[in-house]
Every structure is written in C-alpha cells, then in structure tokens.
C-alpha cells in the first residue's frame, strides 16, 4: 500500500496538474502496441500468402475449366499445346520420390549420428560432429546443387546406365541437405530421455545395443519421426538444388537414373517464361498451391507426433 502511494506521488510530481497518462504507463502502452503490431504483421503475412496463392492457384479450376482430378491424376504436361493438358502427376511423383528416398537415406545416418553423439562418444560428438552438422546445415542450397552437378551426377553417369541426372541424384543431394535437421532433432530427443531408463536396462545385464534397440529408440520414436518428417518437408520444398540435378523431363521416370521433374523444379523453370493470367501461368500457381497445402499437412503431422511425445 505504501508503495502505491509513493508511486502516485511520484507520478503527480512528474505531471503536476496534468491529466495525461503517467510516463511509465505511456511507455508501457507504446511498447505493448509496438510488439502487438509486429505479431499482427506475422498474422497478416500468413493470411495474405494463403489468400493470394490460393486465388491464383484456384483460377484454372474455377474459371478456366480444368478439373482437379485431371490435374492431380493426369500424366501429360503440355500447357502450350492447342488442347492444353495439365497433368501434374509426374511432378507430384518426382517430389514424393526424391524427398522420401532422401529420407530413407538420411534417416538411418542421422539417427546413428545422434546415437554416436549421445551414447557412444559424447566428447568427439560435441567437439567435432556437432559443429560439422551445424556447418552442413549452413551450406547454401545452390552450393549443394553445384556439388551435386559436378560430383554426384558424373559419378552416377560413369557407374550406372543413363545420363547421371535423375531421381537418385536428386535424392542423394537432398539427403545431405536434410541430414542436419534429422540429426539435430534426434540428438535433442535422446538427450532429454530420463537417465533411469538406460541404467535400469544395464542393471539387468543388457548390452548397449540391446538397450538402444529395445528401449531407447522405441521410447524416443515419436521424436525421431518428427525429425524425419521435418526433413521430408524441407526436401519437398527445396527448389534449386533439386532442379540442377534432376534433369527436368516432365514424365514419370522408369528407373532411378532417368531424368524427372518435381513441383518446385517445374515452377522454377517455367514461371519466368509465362505471361501472367495465361492458363499455363495459372497452372503453375496451382502447383504452388499444392506445395503450400503440403506444408500444412507436414506441420499437422509434426503436431500429431509432438502430441504423442507429450503424452508419453
């Protein structure tokens, strides 16, 4: 009570006979409205992204007579032909094939790296492997694309049938790109496991691998999966690195070594060469809308997995 009185006095001293807000209230109000404005901006940005991309991406279906099923299931992409065909299945296939294959390569490596850092050699892990992973995360995607083009593609060309470019080249480049994501999240998950879990298992005479494979990995599985899903999400949305090594042929490849395309690669290549408002251009916006919706799906899956982590 004493304090409030003092404060009131102080206020009245600073603002004698003035009915404006006291100074500390004013600065609080100003600060609070500024931070609210920043948050509001974030919300405005996300709604306008969804609104603008959806309004362009839905045009082919709403007013240009394209059926959604034809686009999602169609095999042929020839938007400039007399009777334009807008089958986006090859791109969907390419995106899913490269990102899932990348996850298949990167997930075991990333989880092993996390086990290495937390269970096997924490010192080497902390001093060498962890900084190495952080550096890998910082390498720009065009540099990965360049290395893919000048190392991975020639290697595949010399050792396997085909031109070297294709789904496998894309998947290899992407797997290195998403390795840091998977490793970091897996490491965090393994570090937060209660210590008693492992100690109990060792006390029963289990070997390290028995403890890891039957106790540690199953317990941490939802978190490990979160990392893998985030990795797939990153791979799915990656544009330039993939575009450089995949070959950009708009059809479903018959083997891993054949040229293919992804949603992002076709957008990157064609967006600049089409006139705004044409069917071709709008169809590319539809592909962008698919990318956007996939992002929502990935976030949703991650949320589901995180929900499981909290309940365990």
């Amino acid at each position, binding site marked *: 009570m004493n304090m409030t009185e003092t404060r009131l006095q102080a206020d009245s001293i600073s603002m004698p006979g003035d009915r404006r807000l006291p100074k500390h209230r004013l600065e609080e109000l100003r600060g609070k409205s500024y931070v609210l404005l920043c948050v509001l901006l974030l919300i405005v940005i996300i709604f306008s992204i969804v609104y603008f991309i959806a309004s362009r991406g839905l045009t082919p279906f709403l007013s240009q007579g394209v059926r959604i099923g034809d686009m999602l299931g169609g095999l042929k992409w020839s938007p400039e032909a007399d009777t334009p065909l807008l089958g986006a299945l090859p791109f969907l296939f390419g995106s899913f094939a490269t990102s899932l294959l990348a996850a298949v390569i990167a997930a075991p490596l990333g989880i092993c790296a996390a086990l290495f850092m937390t269970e096997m050699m924490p010192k080497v892990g902390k001093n060498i492997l962890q900084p*190495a992973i952080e550096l890998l995360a910082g390498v720009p995607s065009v540099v990965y694309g360049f290395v893919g083009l000048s190392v991975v593609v020639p290697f595949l060309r010399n050792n396997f049938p085909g031109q070297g470019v294709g789904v496998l080249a894309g998947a290899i480049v992407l797997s290195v790109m998403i390795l840091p994501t998977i490793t970091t999240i897996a490491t965090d998950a393994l570090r937060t496991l209660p210590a008693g879990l492992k100690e109990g298992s060792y006390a029963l005479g289990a070997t390290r691998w028995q403890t890891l494979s039957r106790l540690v990995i199953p317990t941490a599985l939802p978190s490990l999966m979160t990392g893998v899903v985030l990795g797939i999400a990153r791979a799915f949305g990656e544009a330039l690195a993939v575009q450089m090594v995949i070959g950009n042929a708009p059809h479903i490849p018959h083997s891993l070594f054949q040229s293919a395309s992804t949603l992002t690669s076709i957008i990157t290549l064609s967006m600049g060469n089409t006139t705004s408002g044409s069917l071709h251009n709008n169809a590319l916006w539809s592909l962008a809308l698919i990318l956007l919706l996939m992002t929502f799906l990935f976030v949703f899956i991650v949320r589901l997995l995180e929900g499981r982590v909290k309940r365990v």
Partner: protein
Amino acid sequence: MKAKTMDRLMTGVIVGVGFLIIALLAALLGYLLIRGVGHISWHFLTSPPESIRAGGGIGPQLFNSLFLLVLTMIITIPLGLGAGIYMSEYAKPSRLTAFIRLVVEVLSSFPSIVVGLFGLLVIVNRFGLGLSLMSGALALTVFNLPLMVRITEQALRAVPREQKEAGLALGLSRWRTITTVMVPIAVPAIVTGTILAAGRVFGEAAALLFTAGMSSPRLDFTDWNPLHHTSPLNPFRPAETLAVHIWKVNSEGLAPDAAQIAAGASAVLIVTVLLFNLCARWLGRVLYRKLTAGR
C-alpha cells in the same frame, strides 16, 4: 554370447556412421575450396560478369548479396525482436497464443520458393516495386522473420526470472524491464542467432529468383547517390545475388569458363558462410563474457 557380438557389430556401425559424416563434411569443404580457390583473385572478386567471353567476375553479385543482407536485416531485426518480445513476455497461455505459435511454425516451414512466388505476386506486382533489391529484401524478411522471432523468444526465456522480478520490483514498467534489464542479458544469444540467420539469408536463392531478379544492370561504382539509376546503393534496381548467379551459371551459363566461375563463386559463398559461423560463435562468447562477468 550372440548378444555381445551383435553389440560390437552395431557399435562399430554407429561409430562408423559418425566418422563417415565428419569425412563427408571434410570432403565437401575440401572439394569446394580446392576447386574454387584457384579461381579466386582480386580481379574475379571485383570485375563484372561476362556473358559469352571468358574471364568474367562476380563483383556486382558479391556487392548485391551484401547490400541485400543489410537491407533485409534492417527490416527483419526490429520486427523480429518485437514479435519475439510479445511471444515471450506478453503472450498469455490462451487460444490466441497457441494460434500465433502455429502461425510462426507454418511460416517457418513454407518452402522458400513459395515465399518467392508470394513476393512476385504481392510485392513485385501489386506494390509495384518491380524486380528490385527492395522486393528481394521484403521477401527475405518474410522468410527470415519466423526464425528471428524464435531466436528472440528463446533468448528472453533463458533470462533468469530473478532479473525480471528485480526490475519489476523496482517499479519499472514491464516494457522498461524488458528493454533495459532483460534484452541486454539476452543480447549474446540474440546476436549469435542473428548472425547464423544472416548466413542463411546470404545463401538463399530460390526466394530471390522472382523478386530481386536474375539480371544485374551495369553498376557505376563511383556513383554513390542512392537515387541514381546505375548507383550500387539504389535499392530499387534489379539485382542478381551471388547464390542466384551460381544457379544461373550452372543451368544456363554460356561463358567457356562457366564451370570455374561456378566453382569460384561457390567457394566465396561457402567461405563467407563459414566466416558468419565462426563470427557468431566468437562474438557470442565475447559478448557473454562482457555482459556477465564484472564490468
């Protein structure tokens, strides 16, 4: 005994993978540096690119990348700090806060090409900024903002509770406590995070293809008036950055030495990112020591 053999085997596999990843990074860096460093010279770093002849450099691209980074950071940091302060200090646990958290999460997982397309549609066309550095900086802000918010929020949350309570107990307003007590303590973490984010911005290309453009008009490096058309400081001119240049040279380069240019530019890019990384660690440590130990 079988369990023990299995244990040894799997230990070997896991340790092997650990060292494999270290070797992978070393090989990647070694390859980039060995192939690229030979091509880097003062001439290469300062002269403009050639489209058909050999001997082109990356001068304007390098400048554009740095300038774009500065512009982006000028816009991102105040906004990111503001939203981060809200998330850590003002947000009450409610539905609205959960929703804002979801917004930040979704925004940070948007593919950068989608952000670039949004920039093309809204910033370049609707706002009429055209393919320009400013459009690029705004698109990169959208791309960088969620990261900045998360960095600020985590840094502020790590500030000891007592510091905040002491400030409030002295009768400071909440805003005063945040800006004069909490933010200074959080500065090392914020600086480290910001520099790492800057490295990400520096290497970003997909969001810039359709916002900052893929061409670089002739620049007159003696004219520093930002309003002139050929001035390097004019933020409303189209600008190709280093990362975009690497992509362009690789996919449609016509110069006979395109491969060397790509290698040299990649080496420059990777060295810059490495510098950002080292700088972030070093500055974070120095600031931490300065702000926590006796002053």
